[in-house]
Each structure stands twice: as C-alpha cells, then as structure tokens.
C-alpha cells in the first residue's frame, strides 16, 4: 500500500513537471478560462439592447409621444428614425437600418381615454430571431406599463403577472459564467488528459512504464490527480472572476459546489482518458476528446440551447451528457442557493457517469498492450 502511494506520487510529480514545463498547457489551463469568460461575459451577451428603432406616429398626441419616448427611455431601443407612413417600414427593414418599428395608429389616445383596446403595433425584423424575440418581450412589457400608467387602471386587465425569481434582472451573464465553468472544465480536463496519455503511447514511454513495477491503476490515478487539481484551480478562477467582474452571486454552499465540480471533473478526466486509450495518436485523441466531451457539453447541456426546446430525441441524447447535470446543479447552487438535497438527483447522475466512464477507460487501458 505504501508502495502504491509512493509510485502514484512519483507519477503525479512527473505529471506536474510536464504541466509546469509546458507553456501551452499552462496557457490552456489558466489563460483560456479567462479568455472564454471575457468573451462570453462581455462579447457574447444574450441581453439585447440598443435595438435601432423607427417610429411611425400617426396619432401625434401626448399619449402617443409618451409611448414612444418611454419605449426609448427603457434603454432597450434607440430611436433611429421617424417614418411618415407604414409603407416605409418594408424599405427600412430591407436596408437593415432599423430592427424594429413602432406604429402608433390614429385614435390611439382617444381609445386609451375611453378605456377601449388601444392598439399600437410593433414590427420586428425577424431575420435575427434572438433579437426579435427579446425585442417583442421588452416592448410588450413597456407598452403595458405605459398604458396602465396612463388610463387603464380601471380595466384591471387580467392576465399573468410575471415575476422573475433568482435572477430578476434576467442578466444573461449569470448563465454565461456558469456555462463557461462547465465548458472550461469539460474542455481542459478532457483535452489535457487525452494529450498526456496519448503522448506516452505515441512516444513509446508507456511501454517503458509498463516494464517497471508501476501498475496501470497507479498510472491512471497518478496522472489524474494533477489535472483534477488544475480543474479545481480553474473552477476557483472562473468563480472568482465571475463574481468580481460580473457580480455572479454564490448563494449556495461552496462544499456542494465543489462536490459537484469534482464529480464532473472526474467524468471529464475519464472522457479524456477514454479518448486517449481508444485513439493511438495525440491528434486523434484530442479530436476524440473534443467530440466526446466538449461538443456535447456545448450543444446539449442546456448552456447555449434550452433543453426544453429540443426535439424529443435530442432531449433523450442530452440525458447522456454529464454537463447537463452539472450545469443544472451549478445554476441551482449559485443562483438559488440550493443545498445538496435539492441537487441530489444531478449529483447521483454525475456519480454514475464518472464511475462508468472511468471504469470503461481503465478496462480499455488494460487491454491495450496484450
């Protein structure tokens, strides 16, 4: 047993030297999370604002002016142009100079005063789907608020009142940061593991190792420990940056957070190991690792595309993506302050996944040489 620990330590120590001596690995491990966080946090925001807006005010009354100014005042829209007639809308859309047009018809104020349905029309350029959806949602909210503020108090229009919990401002950055953690862990953990093991195959040092008393379990554990440690550092890094730069709340317990992270890490390390055991060269192993871990996490974890919107077969497929469980748990712990008992289902799924992947990798690893 003592020998087991010492030999494992020897492997782990060697692996740390590899990492430290390889500028590429250090960049990949520590630089990439920062770059991705910046990119996703600042660059790729799903919050839509500054939508160029044109206004066709046919009513020309205080009420109509109030509607258009409040729409702009909310900050989502920028008044780009005023059009005389609704017939000009088509041309404006085609030029792409505006993404939305507010049309306020004759009699808007009159209808409002009478308490009758007053209809202003918002035309949205649907060629940019995301912007369109969000613009409509925002505008509807503003229009309703404006109208009720003016006169419709009496009618007490029925309909759901939406209150957003946990992320009332609907800041998409929160989703981004948690998504980046999942992406980074899946990418770096599986990629680096795939690289380190396939490099030993490719260079022939694996055979040299097999000629020593070192066992396969010692090789695997010794190799995984430093990368698991690296994963921890990355998780901490992204969380810290996330909470400083994007005010990401951490409402749940860090213990739960790191329990989930460890399990997910193990699954991803196992994926990398599996990729390197199946593939014989570094190049193929890296592609395998991306295919096995990164792609499914990016596409099917619910980070970029909501799982609920997927067709049934993709939803089924997403059940086999560990990132899905980790992301759910992560968001739960970060934003809702969920305890372990709430995210237990996800934790169990991660445990099963990590165990299965590692077991499979170890099995395949055994078979390689004979």
């Amino acid at each position, binding site marked *: 047993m003592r020998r087991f620990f010492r030999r494992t330590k020897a492997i782990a120590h060697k692996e740390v030297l590899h990492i430290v001596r390889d500028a590429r690995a250090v960049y990949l491990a520590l630089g990439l999370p920062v770059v991705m966080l910046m990119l996703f946090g600042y660059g790729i925001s799903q919050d839509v604002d500054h939508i160029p807006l044109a206004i066709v005010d046919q009513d020309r009354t205080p009420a109509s002016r109030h509607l258009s100014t409040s729409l702009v005042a909310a900050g989502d829209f920028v008044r780009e142009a005023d059009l005389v007639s609704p017939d000009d809308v088509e041309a404006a859309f085609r030029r792409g100079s505006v993404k939305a047009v507010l049309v306020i018809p004759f009699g808007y104020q009159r209808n409002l005063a009478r308490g009758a349905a007053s209809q202003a029309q918002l035309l949205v350029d649907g060629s940019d789907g995301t912007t369109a959806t969000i613009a409509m949602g925002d505008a509807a909210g503003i229009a309703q608020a404006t109208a009720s503020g003016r006169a419709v108090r009496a009618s007490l229009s029925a309909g759901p009142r939406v209150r957003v919990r946990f992320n009332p401002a609907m800041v998409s950055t929160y989703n981004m940061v948690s998504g980046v953690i999942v992406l980074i862990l899946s990418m770096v953990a599986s990629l680096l593991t795939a690289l380190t093991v396939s490099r030993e195959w490719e260079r022939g040092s694996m055979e*040299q190792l097999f*000629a020593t008393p070192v066992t396969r379990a010692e090789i695997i554990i010794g190799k995984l420990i430093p990368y698991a440690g690296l994963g921890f550092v990355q998780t901490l890094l992204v969380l810290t940056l996330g909470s400083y730069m994007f005010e990401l709340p951490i409402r749940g317990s860090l213990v739960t957070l790191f329990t989930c992270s460890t399990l997910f890490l193990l699954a991803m390390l196992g994926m990398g190991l599996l990729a390197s055991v199946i593939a014989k060269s570094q190049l193929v192993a890296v592609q395998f690792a991306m295919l096995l871990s990164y792609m499914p996490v990016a596409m099917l974890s619910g980070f970029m595309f909501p799982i609920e919107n997927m067709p049934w077969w993709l939803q089924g497929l997403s059940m086999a993506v560990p990132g899905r469980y980790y992301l759910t748990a992560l968001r739960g712990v970060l934003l809702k302050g969920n305890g372990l008992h709430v995210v237990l289902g996800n934790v169990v799924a991660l445990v099963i996944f990590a165990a299965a992947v590692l077991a499979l990798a170890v099995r395949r690893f055994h078979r390689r040489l004979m």
Partner: protein
Amino acid sequence: MSHDVSVRVKDLTKRFGEFVAVHDVSFEVRKGEIFGYLGANGAGKSTTIRMLCGLLSVSSGSAEVAGVDVVHRPNAVRRAIGYMSQKFSLYLDLTVADNLEFFGGAYDLFGRTFRERRDAVMGELALETLSDELTGSLPGGLRQRLALACALLHEPEVVFLDEPTAGVDPGARRNFWRLIRRLADEGTTIFVTTHYMDEAEYCDRVGLMVAGELAALDTPERLKRNFVPGRMYEVHGADVGEVQKAAKDLGLLGIEPFGAILHVRVAENGPDAQALRRELSRRGARVTSVSDAEITLEDVFLRVVGGAAKASNASEEARTT
C-alpha cells in the same frame, strides 16, 4: 533453475492472428553474458524481448527470466529486469535528474536508497555534470546513456536493450559498448538486439533471427568458422561483372559483390592473394588489386539469410556453391 542461467526460453512462439512473429525459439543466456540478437527489421527481435519483459503475452512455449516464469507471471519479472525500448522513451521535457528520480520512484527507490543508486549510476555512466540539463537538449549518445542509467537504477539481474544504439554516432556507440562490457563483467546479464553487424562482434554469443526463427546461435568466432569457412579476399577490379565471369571456373567458395569491389572466399588451403590475382588476370579480368579481408558477421548473416538479403541477380548467378 540453476544459478548461472538468467534467461531460459523453450519453444517460444508468438502469433499475431495468422502471422507468426516468433516461431519455436529456444535458447539459454548465462548470467553475466552479453547475448546479441541479430536480425533484419521485422525478424522478431523486439517481439521476443517484449515477451521476455512481460510486455506481450506468449502464444506458446515457456520462458523464464531471472527465475520468474514470464508466461504465467508477466508482471512479476519487472523488478528483476531493466528494459530500454527501441524508441528513446524518456521524457524530453524533464531534466536528467527528474528522469532519474521518476524512474527511481517507478522502481520503488526512495530517499537515501535512491540517492545512493542515482549517484552510483551517474558516476558509472559519466552523467554527473548533466543533472540539470533538459533531456531534450542532449545529443543521442548521452540520451542513450541516460536511458541505460534509468534502466540500471534498481540493479536488475537482466538488462534488455532493444537496438540501444540506433541513431547514435560511431564514437558514442563504441563508448556505449564499453559500458555494456563492464556491466557484464560485473555480473549483469545483457540481452541486446541490433542490426549493426559490427556491434554483434562485441557479444559473447549471437543469435541470428530470420523471419521469426532462430537460424543460428553461437559465439561470433564459431559462427564465422561454421558458416563462412576459408579465407576472404577483397578484389578490386575495373569491372565487377568481368571479374565475376573470370572467377566462375576457379572453384572458389563464394563471390559476393560488395559495392564496387568483390568479396572472394577461398578454401583454407586455397590460393593466396598473389596467386588469385594472377589467375584472374590470366582469365582476362582487369584486376587492380587483391587484398586480405576479415570475415565478418555480415558475411555470416548473408550466408544464413541466403538469397533474400541480396538484391542483385548477378550475385545469384555468380555463386559457385
């Protein structure tokens, strides 16, 4: 197993599907012997070594290395052997000291035991001054010495060296073999493969592998005497074909083209260099000179392998045997 035998192999066979890589090979290697395994690429040298090191499963036959049954306990042999694989497989991004420390750890050497052994092998292989050098920055010869050092840390009974000097310059190769000889004199058994014929001369005994079979096994001297008897001359002529034709009816033991010259072998009591030159000239061949030549293991190898190793059909015709 008697104490003076380090490796005992009986009817060892390795099949990869239909292909028989090693076929019914049997031999013994004495303790402290340098045992050379000579053969073309793909003749089954590495496969044999890898079976003996417990890295490949054995299809049939038996093999004992350092008293361990490799067929049934392939993992148990590792502590008793050192292995230097064909490909240089230390870590290039680690320093010399790091590599030694890692392989020390892999062989269960720690603390003072490790430091003592490390200093011993570094001294023996003259690596002391290179401790902090990156392995990747070392020239081939030094890398080989480091690889050997790593394989010797745990004082193995048998050391397996698979083409240890491939890609190493001649000076460093000679140096390396001096080290190997010293190791063997100290009692370590050396099992080495090579396809450098001149290196095989350093071995106590040489086994010739041809297409998975052990075609011959003896000391270099006896191999030469048995397979290539007689005396050898180098014949320099303006035209190899002409000399070949002229020599045809001289009743010689062998004629092999060797680049622009001919290797001509005569019986022990055959003509001397002067007489041979006279005879060839008399038959119309323009011979510039005839000189004595060493019979080498290369000649043995070519004899054993037969026509397969020879490229030209001309030599096939010229053979008088």
